[in-house]
């Protein structure tokens, strides 16, 4: 989907066209899932976060000023929701104790394998950079970090991936 097509759907979605909205969310579903899974450790929590994000985006879509920022905006809503879920889960499992992402849960997708290689704090940045295609400056804005910090983490993550693939080879 081109940026233009995406924006066309955003405009229609903002005007409360449910079909356009669903088409829009469907086009983002892979990305949203990968982002959710880069923060949360299981599909159930990821599914909850995505469901809440869909409803929040629908309710708040008129608050989106720039149609071109839909991706960043929905990503931010999703990330916030994911962290809320972690906080809610704290009563049960302390966040540091959350299990590592199981490599083979549901599928043996290569990206899950790659995510599992990375340090927890770098997974989200790598996903935003490679899956969503955000620039480091945009990631910095979404996560409230400096551009330099994003680049440093990305560098570390790439090193980890490279090392992993070298060892694997």
């Amino acid at each position, binding site marked *: *989907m*081109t*940026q*233009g097509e995406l*924006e*066309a759907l955003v*405009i*229609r979605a*903002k*005007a*409360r*066209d*449910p079909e356009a*909205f*669903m088409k829009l*969310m469907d086009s983002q*579903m*892979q990305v949203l*899932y*990968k982002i959710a899974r880069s923060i949360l450790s299981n*599909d*159930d929590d*990821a*599914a*909850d976060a*995505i*469901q809440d994000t*869909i*409803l929040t985006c*629908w309710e708040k879509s*008129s608050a989106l000023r720039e*149609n071109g920022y839909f*991706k960043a905006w929905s990503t931010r809503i999703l990330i916030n929701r994911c962290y809320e879920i972690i906080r809610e889960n704290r009563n049960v499992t302390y966040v540091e104790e959350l299990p590592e992402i199981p490599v083979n849960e*549901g*599928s043996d*997708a*290569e*990206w899950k394998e*790659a995510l599992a290689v990375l340090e927890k704090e770098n997974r989200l940045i*790598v*996903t935003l950079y*490679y*899956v969503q*295609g*955000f*620039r480091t*400056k*945009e990631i910095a804005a979404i996560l409230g970090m*400096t*551009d*330099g910090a994003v*680049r440093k983490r990305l*560098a570390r993550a*790439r090193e980890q*991936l*490279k090392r992993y*693939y*070298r060892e694997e*080879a």
Partner: protein
Amino acid sequence: MGRSDFEIRRIFSEEEVLPEVVRRKKHEAYDTIFDQVKAQETRKEENAQSEGATKRKGKMSLHRLGTLPKVAGFLIACVLVFGGTAVATTLLLNRYDRMKQMEQKEKDTLWGDLEQGGNLAYELSRQLTARESDRLNKLREKYKSNEAFPDGELARLVEGEAYSGEGVALCRGAGTNGTENLIYLPERELTDEELLEIVEYEEKLIYVVHENNEKRFAESADWAKRLTELTDEEVDYYYLAFFSTRMGLFDGYCRVVNGVFMGSTEGGDKLSASENVRYQEMLREYEEKGRIPASEAVVIEKPEDYAGNGIAVCRYDANFYLPATELTDEELLQIIDFRKKAYYSAQRIDDDVKLGHRQARPSLPQKESDELKNLSSKKFSETTGETKLSDLNNAAIGDLVEFGSYEQDGDCANGSEKIRWYVLDETQDCYVLLAERILDDKAFNEELKTVSWADSDLRGWLNGEFLKTAFSAGEQSRIVADEVRNEYGGDTKDKVYLLSDREICEYFGIDPQAVDLTVFGTDVKASLKRQAELLDELDPRLFAKPTEEALKRGAESFEQASVDAYLKFDKIDFSKALGNGSWWHRSASPQQGPFANATVSSGLVNAGQYVNDAYGIRPVIRVRK
């Protein structure tokens, strides 16, 4: 072999079937939304019925505006839709001309529609059939490419006027709750003319919205009003100073202490904590009290033009160059003022392009491009014909020559192979040569740190080990150790060096203002598509393949698996990039951190590669005639 950025991107872009739980929760959310909408519609219908409104029955559908069309580059006469000579006359105008022909009265009426309907909305008296929707979309595309326009326009009904049942007619406030605007549709299938009238109505609404953007911005604050008073020339000036860079990053800071650019590790890329506090204070003063700087930040062309004092905006990298000293209030105001003007200018230019007032965004005037041309010869780019292997003593620009030798075929036992070079340029005394292929694979710097070409490990290796390995003593004596003019970090004196961003543009005939050479925009797919197109558009000699030996040493090349993956996942054909490798430039911009630029497999510049990553080496030498 390590995995390239392309490869990692491919892995993460891999589509997979979403887990059942995710699909279920998604559908639950969609059901909730549908229920909400249905409940809302039922309420609306009940209200309408109770008010005794004489609306047609059937499900109302909301129709909103589409995106603003892109600038149409051409005009195609299409008589299939209408036929006849009258149509041909209509088609002489493009859609923007049609918009511009609107009289103020019509614009006011449309604005009135927007105010009445709110949220850019109108409703249709009945839902379009699937066939009509499909035709509407197709006709919208034709309208946008100037292939089809309506002969007439949407009829307007005054309040209370009955709809005749024929043609399409708009009645303000006849929609839901007596607020939405309603377009009455005949019960039969809509004609092309009727659909086009709806399309044009939408287009006109969008046009009016954009035209009013500026007005609304001006009314939002005094400082905003001041910006709207900028002339078109001023708008171009601020835009070009800030957004004409193709270096990928912009709007950063670069502090210069004793003539040295401070990198991010030294905090040179940001304001100090106390400056940040005062920046916010000044921003309030600027926005709320109308405080403006006494003078403006100056615009410089290149980082080395910065005098070391005051605030300068550098066109090359769109950074604010700052003095070593704590910034004064005046200097902070200069930054705020320039930044506001630059972003406003970009917005205004975008609006102008969308409204058809401009064909495209401005680019640097020809005069300045000519100045850049003088930095080096442009002739190489004009020799794109067949490349012939020449004798170095009698070569011409664009020829291939052999000089020195290096292990290339991956078989050390048979000795090293002669190196082939493109003759990039010639002076009275020497030739400038660029290796045809990627000869090796090295990091720009072993340690991940802010580093300029002058201090890089790669420069040391090229002028040390590589020089000794590739050239005999006699050959070495023919290589000129001359000044290399660097964009960053001071000039160097090198025998072997790499091309800079600017030299690449010059030698390969690329106008950096016209071709965005940076890889990966926000829209990955669009960016990939553009890269694939550029494989055809750019000088093929810009693309280089690693030698067998370089591949052995870890050089990456665009592999068949990547070609297949892009074809499969993105439907983009990268087969022309097959075998191409990535190679370092010497353009490292220390003030932006530990990064240097490289040309990637598909010929584009990847601004900001980590210096400790290994990329291909395509050396440049100057050989005495």
